[in-house]
């Protein structure tokens, strides 16, 4: 009884229990994952459209981007970009004689993770766009729709059902890769757990609690994505 009492005290959301720190870390994890997912989507959409556009130099640059990011270990990418990104941005601004900006850890973490995810998203979205029946796009062109209208009305709705499984996988991997920013000292769930364990020396309990929190995030995400997929696939014939 005393043991469970001790565990509950440690995990309590109110200080001196460390549960609150862990929950704040979980919120932080979800926040940077969501931010990175959005940035990755933007980069991925641009990248996919760029790769399919037929512009050869653009395609080369994008191929380099996706191949490099997908071949280099995430840890090295995150550590390298975390320091290089800030440094490079400020040097760039300095060359244009603009004042240097200071951005906080959240923005840098989101930007770095988003940049990495953009490469994976490019491939997923490219595959999804290629899976759209060519006839639909040709019909849109025949109607005289411009590229933006075409994208908004035909391509985007059609690629969503195709892309959704891939996007769901990428969301899963972002929520887990977000743990890597603990190595650069940004406080999300993994680092919060390490701090809690370090202060109380009860490492096993806190790491187990963190694992369960991540699991909860994964399971809830699974449910959310299957709901989205059902909505997006409404009206489509069900596969027999």
């Amino acid at each position, binding site marked *: 009884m005393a043991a469970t009492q001790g565990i509950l005290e440690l995990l309590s959301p109110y200080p001196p229990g460390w549960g*609150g720190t862990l929950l704040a870390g979980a919120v932080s994890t979800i926040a940077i994952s969501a931010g990175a997912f959005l940035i990755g989507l933007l980069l991925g959409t641009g990248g996919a459209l760029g790769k399919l556009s037929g512009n050869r130099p653009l395609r080369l640059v994008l191929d380099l981007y996706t191949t490099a990011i997908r071949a280099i270990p995430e840890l090295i990418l995150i550590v390298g970009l*975390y320091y290089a990104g800030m440094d490079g941005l400020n040097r760039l601004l300095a060359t244009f004689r603009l004042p240097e900006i200071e951005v906080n850890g959240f923005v840098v973490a989101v930007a770095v993770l988003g940049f990495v995810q953009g490469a994976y998203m490019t491939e997923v979205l490219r595959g999804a766009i290629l899976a759209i029946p060519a006839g639909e796009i040709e019909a849109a062109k025949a109607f005289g729709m411009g590229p933006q209208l075409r994208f908004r009305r035909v391509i985007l709705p059609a690629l969503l059902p195709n892309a959704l499984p891939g996007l769901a996988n990428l969301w899963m991997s972002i929520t887990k890769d977000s743990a890597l920013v603990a190595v*650069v*000292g940004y*406080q999300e769930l993994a680092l919060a757990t*390490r701090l809690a364990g370090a202060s109380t*020396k009860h490492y096993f309990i806190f790491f187990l609690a963190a694992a369960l929190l991540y699991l909860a995030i994964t399971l809830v995400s699974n449910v959310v994505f299957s709901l989205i997929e059902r909505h997006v696939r409404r009206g489509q014939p069900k596969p027999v």
Partner: protein
Amino acid sequence: MKLLPMLLAGATLAFSAITAQAEVRFGIMNESYPPFFAKDASGQWQGWEIDLMNAVCGEMKEQCSIVELSWDGLIPALQSKKFDVIWSSMSNTPERSKVIDFTDKYYNTPSTLIGSKDEKVGASAEDVKGKTIGIQVSTIQSDYFKKYFAGVADEKTYQTLDEAFQDLAAGRIDYVFGDSLALDAFLKSDSGKDCCAKAGDVADDKEILGAGVSGGLRQEDTELKAKLNAAIAAVRASGKYDEITKTYFDFDIYGAK
């Protein structure tokens, strides 16, 4: 059409992270390093070094904020202007002085080895022969190890000192090599009391162990350096330094000149 306001909102969010120019940002390692700095359960920073930082800021009449980073990222992040002063128990060594500048020291303590309570332990090269020593990465102790213990003992590097303590308690390593006060704090804790005891201070080597802990600065920030040095001197002179030190230790940690 909804894209434009969204972009503007996003840009505002990013740029609203720009802090006012008058603020001095202190970079601290985002790990537990009692008694100098540690986060408590409500996320507040506590510790001797935090109190000193607040006192120094009061003297400088500046707004101070804390930026958290990993230990081995402090110097690169300082150079890429993520913050202005490293205030994380970093020692002033000739090696580090090649890339960054330092303020005057604000404390100086010896480096010690701690080992298992049940075995015979000591702090000379003889005593550590054939043993495994746990050291935090990128520290003066790891440089000291390279010079004095490299051929004699094995080294295990850890991202944080606390992980080294864990492994010492688990018996995976024989010694932990670090700053005497940080190690003392561990020995006073529950898990430290059970397993371990002090082995002794190592012989001093000013070039490797440095001239004391100081704030790290970019080499071009001479104005900030002057302000910080003046503030540190003022805190020492006014007795605030001793007042802060008394709350944590019962001896002076400034160290001989």
